């Protein structure tokens, strides 16, 4: 085998998360009352555009999750035993191999052919001049950068954008074809209804977002093979590569932390609200105390302890990546432990309200056990709150990682993340001329990720929020109770009708 697979801790958890995601999708599809709000999510244009952007980030994150150690080229002395590299690579690293390996000497500005620092260069006649030397890789094909650079960059960018556009047209035609087949309508008809926005799912918004992404990334790809699109950092590594690698860390922190905090919040929150009395007192005092401790202090203490442990037990870790990964996982855990209190408080309130509902009283009258009441009556009725809160928390956690890494108690310094990128560039902001592109890259990528997550969270909240729903239903209620059930039954029956046709 040319490689051995490596399964890091967070990888395993990410796979678990993906499996849970697929499982719950199947579960939701089978339950009408769960399917209805999700269908409303798919009807929101901003939500679906955001989801398209998020999906790109997720794909990059997943590519970066498949880790392995490549086989080192056979050394002449030891041809019997295979030796694997100590460097753990991911699929993304393989894909971005040129970016990863084209390392310059130090800083260089985006799309530049020269270094950002003057060096003393020996001229052919033996004299010495101080000037900006040419880059090893960036713009190396140019004879005279001063005159050719602009034209070259433009032509490459346009070419890349053009190929991105062609890719998009192919993708769009495939999508329209698929939709037309599924609905058994003519291709042209489907095409028209998409662009006239008569489809339920805002395909035009999705397609436009996709067009933007494909054109941008086409141009980037075309440029990236000959330039450093976002410049290089202090040790000459490509900033675009760093930004792309940071996505996984952001996603892992955002999702795994939620996964860790959920059991606490669900179990304790619902238990406090449902059982009341002593259990309620204990849980309330616990989370009040926990939320009064400044979480940065708690996280700093825990992470520093972990760091000491890792350093004293260096032999436990085969690779640097494994070490950094454990620290990341630990960061997720400690963030999870400190952040469950908000959701717990919300769920306690909701459970307090639900336990007085008459259907729960009726269940008591039947002598249904406490566990069954919690699992069958309370949990399904608080899930919308859990969903809204976790999606909303995601962006907050991505930002929290950046802040913590900046402070120095975040991820391992060897791990590329938005936080470490910001931390590395903070001193250079004071330089004259300023090195702005590292910070800029981190900002743009984080902004896109968090904004799309927030927009998506917004549309999820709108779809699941019972108040928004009652606002619409109120209109029916006050004039016609039958209408509400009809709307809902329409919503519920339409997917079946769609399948039948």
């Amino acid at each position, binding site marked *: 085998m040319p490689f051995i697979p490596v399964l890091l801790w967070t990888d395993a958890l990410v796979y678990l998360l993906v499996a849970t995601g697929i499982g719950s999708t199947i579960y939701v599809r089978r339950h009408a009352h769960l399917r209805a709000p999700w269908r409303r999510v798919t009807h929101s244009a901003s939500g679906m555009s955001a989801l398209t952007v998020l999906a790109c980030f997720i794909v990059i994150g997943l590519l970066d999750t498949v880790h392995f150690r490549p086989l080192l080229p056979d050394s002449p002395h030891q041809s019997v035993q295979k030796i694997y590299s100590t460097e753990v690579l991911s699929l993304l690293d393989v894909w971005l191999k040129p970016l990863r390996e084209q390392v310059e000497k130090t800083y260089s500005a985006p799309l530049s052919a020269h270094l950002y620092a003057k060096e003393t260069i020996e001229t052919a006649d033996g004299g010495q001049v101080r000037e900006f030397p040419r880059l090893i890789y960036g713009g190396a094909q140019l004879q005279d950068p001063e005159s050719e650079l602009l034209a070259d960059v433009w032509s490459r960018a346009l070419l890349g954008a053009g190929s991105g556009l062609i890719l998009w047209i192919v993708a769009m035609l495939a999508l329209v074809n698929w939709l037309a087949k599924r609905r058994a309508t003519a291709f042209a008809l489907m095409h028209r209804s998409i662009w006239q926005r008569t489809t339920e799912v805002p395909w035009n918004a999705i397609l436009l977002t996709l067009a933007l992404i494909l054109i941008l990334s086409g141009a980037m790809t075309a440029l990236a093979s000959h330039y450093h699109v976002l410049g290089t950092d202090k040790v000459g590594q490509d900033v675009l590569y760093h930004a792309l690698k940071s996505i996984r860390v952001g996603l892992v922190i955002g999702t795994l932390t939620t996964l860790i905090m959920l059991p606490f919040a669900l179990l304790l929150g619902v238990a406090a609200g449902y059982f009341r009395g002593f259990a309620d007192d204990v849980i309330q005092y616990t989370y009040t105390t926990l939320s009064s401790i400044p979480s940065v202090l708690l996280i700093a203490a825990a992470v520093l302890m972990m760091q000491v442990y890792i350093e004293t037990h260096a032999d436990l870790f085969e690779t640097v990546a494994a070490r950094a990964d454990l620290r990341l996982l630990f960061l997720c855990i400690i963030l999870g432990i400190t952040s469950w209190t908000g959701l717990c408080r919300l769920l306690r309130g909701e459970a307090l309200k639900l336990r007085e509902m008459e259907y729960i009283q009726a269940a008591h009258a039947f002598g249904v056990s406490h566990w069954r009441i919690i699992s069958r009556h309370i949990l399904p009725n608080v899930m919308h709150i859990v969903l809204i809160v976790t999606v909303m928390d995601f962006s907050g956690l991505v930002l929290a990682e950046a802040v913590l890494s900046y402070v120095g108690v975040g991820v391992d310094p060897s791990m590329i993340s938005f936080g470490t990128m910001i931390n590395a560039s903070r001193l250079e902001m004071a330089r004259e001329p300023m090195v702005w592109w590292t910070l800029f890259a981190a900002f743009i990528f984080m902004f896109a990720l968090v904004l799309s997550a927030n927009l998506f969270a917004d549309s999820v909240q709108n779809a699941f929020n019972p108040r928004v729903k009652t606002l619409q239903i109120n209109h029916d209620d006050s004039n016609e109770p*039958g209408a509400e059930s009809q709307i809902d039954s329409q919503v519920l029956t339409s997917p079946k009708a769609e399948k039948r046709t």
Partner: protein
Amino acid sequence: MTALLTIEGMTTRLRVGERTIYAVDGLSLEIECGQTFALLGESGCGKSMTALSIMRLLPDAGEVTQGSVRLHAQDLLTLPESAMRELRGNRIAMVFQEPMLSLNPVMTVGAQIAEVLQRHTSMNKPAIQSRMIELLQNVSIPDPAQRLTEYPFQFSGGMKQRVMIAMALAARPELLIADEPTTALDVTIQAQVLDLMRVLQQQTGMAILLITHDLGVVAEMAHQIGVMYAGEMVECTSREKFFQQPAHPYSQKLFAALPSRQKRDRALAVIGGEIPALSKSFTGCRFADRCEQAWSVCHASIPPWVKIAPGHQVRCHLYTAQNTSKTKPAVTPSERIIAHSPHNNNTDHQNDALLEVHDLKIHFPIRRGLLKRVTGHVKAVDGVSLRIAPGRTLALVGESGCGKTTVGKGIMQLVEITAGSVYLNGEALSELRRKQLLAKRALFQIVFQDPYSSLNPRMRIAEIIEEGIRALQPAQSRQKNKDISVRYTEVDALLQQVGLPADVKWRYPHEFSGGQRQRIAIARALAVNPQLLICDEPTSALDVSVQAQILNLLKSLQHKRGLAYLFITHNIAVVDYLADEMAVMYLGRIVESGPAQEVLDHPKHPYTQALLSAIPVTDLDAKRDVIRLEGEPPSPANTPTGCHFHPRCPHVMPICREVYPSTSRFGSAHATRCHLYNSDF
């Protein structure tokens, strides 16, 4: 007299998603000065939408598309919004249903009334202050100067509604729109508020547009009556004509659906089917599908607005000129007689009581302070004794807050009993452990008041009904799990018993109407074959015609299964129709009990007398002396000494303030607790 408000052909349209709903369709009416026009109809018929259309307060999705609304000669629909704001609260005022929600909780009552006065009058501060005091005096709120500085939470429900009325009257409106003003209030309080509105109308000469579903309130208040059905006015006439001879089949059905003693041994008339969806366009009469007197014309053409007598208009083909000569379908009274089990007056029948409650007390501790020390008790139930024989119905009657629901929950062992005992078939439930109690749970079940919160929205009907079977007969259900068809035959049978088709079991509760949900709740309770069903106001959230369906169902189930009911209610008409025995509760204690008819005909306790007299009746000829109770029931946390009723009792004596009266008996079963009948005294 000239018409104050004239509505002509008003159509209000609501956009819900892709569909358009015609909430009000071609409505015309006239209200004269000093008159009360009652808009009568069941929920969803568009009466509230009519009020909002007049005020131009429709939700964003709604608009008035046709017709005109004129106040004197001014067309309200064409006025600019700023002029409309000037008009609202000034010339037209509105009182809403829910007094708890219509006042801002963080503003004092005075500030809220002053807001109206500042907006619509040019009075200065002292003038406003004196006007506010005058207003509160008008609505009979004692100590007005002090009350003005208080916040809404310091007022009781009836007092809040008075404040709302005072606010509405602040700028001396010409028209008061009252949208179900007393629906949320108790009967004795309702009587006070209705009285107040009548008096104020006489003083100020304003017109009232009263929106209600209660025929009794209409009989008390209205001069003119308009009956609405599915967005249309179907009948419009004066009160006298309406109550003597309702013309439209729908109006007739509404009367027939009212429970009363005369209908005791019969099933109540029900209106089959449901209100049609208002989004479709109608080709015939909207009521045709549910009308027993409908014939082909009714489905084919829309009935015109016919004048059958001076001031009496009906929208029905029965009265159109060309049809009166033709043969009308024979009106067959569809009152199917329930073969009621002969009333068993045997006394040994009562010896083997199914349920016996002895001196039940349920007190909730009031905790205060940091250490949550108990500083007092809310005595929700304070010594209640009841007995129900198998197959009989005991009605527990009382106003809200008297503890009747808590009695039900106490019997169900849903709340902890402070003292006393509950015997079911001679076994003390209150002493059983959780496990032992589980075995007994199948014998007694409960049906709740609100059909919207009593079914889990995330469970399908089959799962809801099965829940009890699974919990109480685990071994059996495990066996049945193997065979799905057998398992669901039971559910199907139950659904059929409550009058629902078997295939609804795969649906979710939100797809059903209130009445259907209540049927499902009854099916769930019946699933475990109980002998006793505690019905906690099962019909108070439902419309009259739906209430009739549920009452019929309960009656036929009692007949078929020999169920005993503990019927908790505040609706005396239902008691009269359904109950064998009744008990009247006041502030946690039973003040009078006995055979239902005897208690209703010859009430002994002053509270029972007042309660019965406060109920609005639909019979206009009935001469009755209404006993108006002053004030409101005291809080159960702070009960009066002596007889609980003495602060409101018209016959209060010195001893009432000191000693709680002992039982006085009249005949074998009728008993009351009042010093008036105490032989020692």
